[in-house]
């Protein structure tokens, strides 16, 4: 289990995390959502030790991750932007990560699964964005890690690959893994997530199952529900209960700016 306890982080004058508290459960796909600069990336990076929190604790299997790097053996991480050293070949990159993890995990199945075989001797710089993202997925999932952190996993994937990815993630969940996803594709989240954690202004704004959120806000899709949350509309329970039409919400666009 990963537990986050009272996590605070300030960049300059900007307080990004204001006392986050959460647990990520086994066999669960948790989607961390929130507008840009809400602190979700900072949370992800804190989990990986890339950002060092001002205070608070992160425990992975009850071990504090501070000044520790071995725990990352248990985490498979899919970074958001798949940019690798341009002049390394696909196979060399995978070999390198294997070497860094001192593991002899095989990636053959995954390579076949994503039809990457023809590319393994290509240089990473010559690959298309989608292919690079597939390589990215392979490197994140090839080790049988109990925890998976997937940052925008769908970027650049064609529909077929997207379906394959979804199947893969569900299969991993079936292996009792703890999975964290961030994504801006709400349909993807809606389909995959067992729990949504919505972060706003460095705090958990709400959390729950996607269906529950949709219901509470009376929206047909998660996307609309989230939009309503962001524009500050109350939950259905607080008004007099008539289902309202989803509206086009202009202020949300503003919130999407960095």
């Amino acid at each position, binding site marked *: 289990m990963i537990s986050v306890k009272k996590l605070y982080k300030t960049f300059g004058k900007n307080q990004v995390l204001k006392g986050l508290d959460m647990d990520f459960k086994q066999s669960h796909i948790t989607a961390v959502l929130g507008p840009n600069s809400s602190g979700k990336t900072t949370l992800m990076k804190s989990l*990986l030790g890339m950002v060092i929190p001002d205070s608070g604790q992160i425990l992975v299997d009850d071990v504090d991750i501070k000044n520790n790097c071995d*725990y*990352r053996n248990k985490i498979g991480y899919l970074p958001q932007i798949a*940019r690798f*050293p341009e002049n*390394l070949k696909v196979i*060399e990159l995978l070999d390198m990560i294997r070497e860094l993890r001192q593991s002899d995990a095989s990636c053959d199945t995954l390579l076949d699964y994503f039809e990457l075989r023809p590319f393994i001797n290509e240089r990473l710089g010559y690959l298309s964005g989608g292919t690079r993202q597939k390589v990215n997925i392979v490197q994140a999932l090839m080790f049988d890690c109990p925890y998976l952190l997937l940052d925008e996993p769908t970027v650049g994937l064609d529909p077929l690959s997207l379906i394959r990815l979804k199947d893969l993630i569900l299969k991993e969940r079936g292996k009792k893994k703890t999975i964290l996803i961030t994504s801006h594709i709400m349909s993807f989240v809606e389909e995959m997530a067992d729990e949504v954690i919505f972060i706003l202004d460095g705090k958990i704004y709400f959390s729950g199952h996607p269906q529950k959120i949709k219901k509470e806000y009376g929206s047909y899709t998660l996307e609309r529900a989230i939009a309503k949350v962001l524009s500050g509309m109350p939950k259905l329970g607080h008004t007099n209960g008539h289902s309202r039409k989803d509206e086009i919400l202009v202020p949300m666009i503003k919130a999407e700016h960095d």
Partner: protein
Amino acid sequence: MIRILKYSFFDLMRSRWTLVYCAFYALLTLALFTLNADISKVIITLMNVILTLVPLIALIFGVIFYYNSREFIELLLSQPIRRSEIFIGQYLGVALSLSLSLLIGVGVPFLFYGIFMSEEIFNYLTLLLVGVILSMIFAGIGFLIALKFQNKIKGFGLAIFIWLFLAVIYDGILLLLLAIFSDYPLEKLAISVSMFNPIDLSRILILLKLDVSALMGYTGAVFQKFLGSTMGMTIAIGVLFIWVLIPLLSIRQLSLKKDF
């Protein structure tokens, strides 16, 4: 560290820019030999080029390399390895590939023109040593700058300013100081100020080889002692190695505290 070093070195050695850099030195050296087959003259011209260009290119390379591999570094950070290992490994990758390009670029034409038969061999080796040390130092400083400044424009700006300062302005200021206070004995000042600039230090190391006859014409006891014996050589090389360590340790220090 070796694991990281190995792959960043592979990556860089295949990079177009490394090849261009290597080819530049090879062509320059060949051109110099074609224009003038006199090895000692070629060495002197190359010395001027190396003292000026190696710091600039190493700085820029260090900066670009870091900025280009920022995302990759994030991936590395998510792996179960220590930060110091990642950054020092990456830095050494840049420094080594730059040094190797220089050695090959300058080295092969010299082999072709028979450096081992020449009495200039020691001047030549000094030149290569200085080139490698400067590559290490300035790649490190470049890397450090990029590590410190997220903003690429700031990073490049600072790198170019540092180069301009150390390669030109610094000596201008020193000369001005020496000229203004020429009534006082300034030799200690001159030597110690030079210690703080790795380009000057490298230049002095070469001077000790090429111009010892002129240097001995100066009366000052400190100069005589410093320049006349192997002591100057030893100290200059020693301080240069300290200069190699400074960016290395700073990279380590900074990387431990930094948020990515």
